[in-house]
């Protein structure tokens, strides 16, 4: 699925990184609030779906080579988090949908789990 289609599907707001979304395909997602789980089990290139809007989410996405971050439950990260993600050149999205509903819609549209958990 194209990242742009995902944005439409989940009615996301693009906080930053719209310029990196062209042609960007999301093939797998990994959803967790526990960053250790993401570090342990996510596949590189997955989209991180999380309700954790701290700076550690941004570092996790960097360290684990993830392709973008989607915050659920309407969470918006603070400025330092946004600044960090800006350097990583990946999109940062937020949706009002809950973790359950966001994941449900994505799974239902054929996206793969981005790792074991």
């Amino acid at each position, binding site marked *: 699925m194209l990242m742009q289609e995902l944005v439409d599907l989940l009615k996301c707001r693009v906080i930053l990184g719209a310029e990196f979304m062209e042609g960007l395909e999301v093939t797998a997602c990994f959803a967790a609030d526990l960053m*250790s*789980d*993401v570090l342990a089990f996510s596949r*590189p290139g997955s989209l991180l779906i999380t309700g954790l809007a701290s700076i*550690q989410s*941004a570092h996790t996405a960097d360290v684990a080579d993830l392709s973008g971050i989607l915050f659920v439950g309407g969470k918006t990260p603070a400025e330092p988090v946004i600044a960090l993600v800006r350097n990583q050149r990946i999109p940062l999205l937020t949706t009002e949908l809950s973790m359950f509903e966001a994941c449900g819609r994505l799974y239902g549209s054929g996206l793969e789990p981005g790792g074991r958990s």
Partner: protein
Amino acid sequence: MNENRWSTGESCVSWEDAEILYSESFRIVGDDFEHGGEAAAKIKAKLKQFGLDAAIIRRLSIANFEAEMNVIMYAREAEMQLQVLPNAVRVILSDRGQGIPDIEQALQEGYSTATPQMRQRGFGAGLGLPNIKRNTDEFEIVSTPGVGTTLRYTIHLQN
């Protein structure tokens, strides 16, 4: 002094004499959650410049990030030293802090002494040390309760 020791992988001794091609140290301050992850990010950027394999960089970065968060959550301060050897990358992390009384227990997945504040950051679920172990080829912990802990972990480079 009551020193606890634990190690895995091939004997670390083989690397003792290895020539250090590059080394750089990063300071980590306890309880500084706002900067938790910066040392791991800096080391990652450096290793990229050296042209190391992406999978190796990812493994080391994950270990570094977990180790860095451990310092922030449990220790007062630490020095994270990156060493690039001809056939391996190694990190030595020495902290001043409370130490680990029972290393075997700390290595169990799910064992944690974290506070709610730590868990709010997405860590503290008892996966830190197991995650380092999972991503490295050699891992050694030396800890003295009340004084501090030294982690040494190494990833081998294939030639």
